[in-house]
């Protein structure tokens, strides 16, 4: 029997300044299904979503929702049809309560006054109906990220959405929190709500989605049922070429014995406790663990960006000063997790961003040397293959992958000893990921000690030569050599010592 169609988008087209971003995209979603939308960055996913939610007008094509052709010209039109969106960066009002947030923009009024009791009851009923666990009176800023997402979902449900669009919903959730999100998604599906699920994480997509649509280069590449395809084939569809060792060898490699950096019982109250490990020359030490295990915080303390309470950091046999300027002078670099806010200055050009960490090389007595700056910029663009290859373009205008290359460029021209990397490929498409891994691997080959924090298990396994797993602010387990699987890391991150045979 043919499934009932909730949404059909046919031959959708869209151009920006003569560049055709969507050439011809079809998408259809059944009632009560989880439908995944996949594609590299630039394939047209976000443009398609923005057309569906009324942010951009479409140039051509048809949108049929619940059997009728519709014009969606504003976010309000979309909401009225029953299309709800869970945004990547949460769109809640932090100082208002859960009820106020859920009812925002659709308050019930009587004689000009708010009917607080009635709105409250409405929200409580909604929470009960879908079996959520949340306090309706809590102020949103006091809630964890995962709870805030729950509020977002409730908000969409409150608009009686029949389709909820989720854009990278697990990006900032821990594994545990993601699990409960998956439960929620399954419950929504059982209630007949359709989900359009956008994610770079293949294993999630394969777990949740009933069908998936793959976009490439502004066209629909394929629509497949879950059972009909395996992950490597999806990747192949997305990038249109065979990926070089995408799921590379999982064996950890032996590195040199020369210790570059040593942490001894590093403590910071409430964040991490007695963290000790060594990093050798030329190795890539992967740090695995759930979000909130204290990994980012340890990196920041090593780099000198945050103070720690007790313990020692020893670099080449001497204590390392806890000041950013000094660690940089000693050959440290940091690729921060929050690329947009901490990694680069969006309005400055690639060249100027690179100069930011290299004033000691490009200036004399505080006077900058334009020639030297230009040289640094050109070298970085060339060495890292940043596209477009013009060092004068503001970094904010680049794609995610190229932005990250520019951030790497800030350090590559230095005499680097230790590079601290935090979630280097979050939100970056698969092709660019591969290039970034190669850059990291080449650095290690040149003798740089790399510490890589990543929540992407495939990434951790692919790049690291040794892995430690942190859990609740402590080093829980070290994997020094031999074969290791994603399961091993997840078990350790969740606190299970040994796999049952």
């Amino acid at each position: 029997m043919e499934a009932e169609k909730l949404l059909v988008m046919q031959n959708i087209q869209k151009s920006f300044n003569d560049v055709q971003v969507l050439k011809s995209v079809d998408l259809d979603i059944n009632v009560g299904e989880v439908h995944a939308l996949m594609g590299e960055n630039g394939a047209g996913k976000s443009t398609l979503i923005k057309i569906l939610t009324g942010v951009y007008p479409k140039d051509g094509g048809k949108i049929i929702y619940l059997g009728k052709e519709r014009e969606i010209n504003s976010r309000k039109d979309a909401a009225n049809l029953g299309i709800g969106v869970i945004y990547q960066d949460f769109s809640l009002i932090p100082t208002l309560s859960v009820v106020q947030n859920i009812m925002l923009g659709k308050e019930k009024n009587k004689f000009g006054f708010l009917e607080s009791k009635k709105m409250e009851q409405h929200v409580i009923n909604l929470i009960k109906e879908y079996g959520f666990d949340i306090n309706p009176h809590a102020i949103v800023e006091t809630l964890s990220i995962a709870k805030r997402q729950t509020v977002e979902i409730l908000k969409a449900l409150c608009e009686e959405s029949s389709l909820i669009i989720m854009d990278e919903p697990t990006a900032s959730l821990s594994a545990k929190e993601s699990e409960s999100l998956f439960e929620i998604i399954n419950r929504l599906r059982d209630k007949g709500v359709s989900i359009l699920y956008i994610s770079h994480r293949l294993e999630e997509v394969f777990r949740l989605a009933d069908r998936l649509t793959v976009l490439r280069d502004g066209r629909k590449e394929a629509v497949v049922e879950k059972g009909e395809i395996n992950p490597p084939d999806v990747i192949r569809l997305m990038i249109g070429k065979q990926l070089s060792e995408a799921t590379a060898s999982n064996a950890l490699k032996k590195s040199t014995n020369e210790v570059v950096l040593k942490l001894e019982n590093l403590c910071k109250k409430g964040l991490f406790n007695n963290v000790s490990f060594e990093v050798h020359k030329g190795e890539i030490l992967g740090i695995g663990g759930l979000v909130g295990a204290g990994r980012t915080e340890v990196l920041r303390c090593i780099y000198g960006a945050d103070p720690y309470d007790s313990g020692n950091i020893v670099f080449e046999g001497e204590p390392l000063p806890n000041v950013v300027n000094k660690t940089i002078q000693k050959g440290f670099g940091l690729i921060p997790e929050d690329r947009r806010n901490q990694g680069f200055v969006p309005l400055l050009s690639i060249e100027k961003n690179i100069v930011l960490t290299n004033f000691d090389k490009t200036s004399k007595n505080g006077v900058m040397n334009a020639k030297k700056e230009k040289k640094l910029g050109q070298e970085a663009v060339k060495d890292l293959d940043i596209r477009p290859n013009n060092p004068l373009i503001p970094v904010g205008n680049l794609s995610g992958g190229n932005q990250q290359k520019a951030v790497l460029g800030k350090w590559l021209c230095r005499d680097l000893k230790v590079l601290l990397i935090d979630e280097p490929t979050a939100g970056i498409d698969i092709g660019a990921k591969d290039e970034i891994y190669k850059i990291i691997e080449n650095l290690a080959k040149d003798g740089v000690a790399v510490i890589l924090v990543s929540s992407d298990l495939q990434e951790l396994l692919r790049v690291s030569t040794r892995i430690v797993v942190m859990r609740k602010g402590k080093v829980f387990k070290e994997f020094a050599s031999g074969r290791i699987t994603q399961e091993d890391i997840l078990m350790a991150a969740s606190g299970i010592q040994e796999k049952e045979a």
Partner: protein
Amino acid sequence: MRQEKIRRLVSIALLLVLVIVFGTTSEYFFTTTNILTLLRECSVVGIISVGVSFIIITAGIDLSTGAIVGFTAMICANLLYYTNMPAQMIIVIALLIGTLAGYLNGILVTKLRLPDFIATLSTQFLFRGLALICAIRTSGVITNKVIDNRGILVMGGSISGLYLVTIVFIIVAVLGQIILKKTQLGVYTYATGANRKSAELSGIDTDKVKRSVFTITGFCCGIAAIFLMAKLGSVTPDTGTGLEFEVIAAVVVGGCAFSGGRGDIFGSVIGALFMAILSNGILKYNLPTATQLIVKGSVIVIMVVFDSLYNGYMEKKIREKSKELEELSGGEA
């Protein structure tokens, strides 16, 4: 709302400290006359601070309030001088001028997309300039014409000791608080300040909210102009100069954060009282004005530092909270 509660307690504590210090060291402080005078002194600033609270909650700022008051008062003075308009008519006109002036700020901010700071800085100059142009002159020289309209002067009076301006301040504050807490505009004011983009995604016309809060403030300035005029009995082009900063200080001491989304009218009332008691006490002690300025400045710094410390503390707490959750559920994963 924990932050708000603590902040409220801090404001009240500061107020109490002042009351206790001045109350115990001066016999004069707790006399009925002085208390009534105090309430009168805080009322003009207080009335404007009701409007400005709305603006600051939307993460905005208004530097033009003092100039709007001055301009409105000057127009009224002209009408009183050159016409025989009844006081009621003058009052309606004052409210109208104030409201329109506030609306103009709103238009500059929402239609011409000027930042609040720049828009209201320009209108500050604009209204002050206009007040100067229409100042009453005798043979070319600006003269200070005494207002002798009985209807207006009555506004400066009192009912069984309680000054009219104080009564109006209380009414305006209560109305403001009701609008802020019990109506859609109130919720939208918080939403616009705390996260404007999200508010827009929820279908809120934040431009309309912005225009509304500036207009409300203009209206409050109109009220303030009438009472200031009645109290002073005359109007000069300088009337109301510096008032805007007194108001902003009162609102900030009262708990509205510059980052928006926090605070309420009740807090601003406390702030206005604080400012008035400080001036009053220091005047009574014959201490130099410098003392007053330095104390005011320091208190504002303390309040803002408190806000940022609290935000840091809050972030840490949420972190620890999620940590506890993981700890609780860790075993079963």
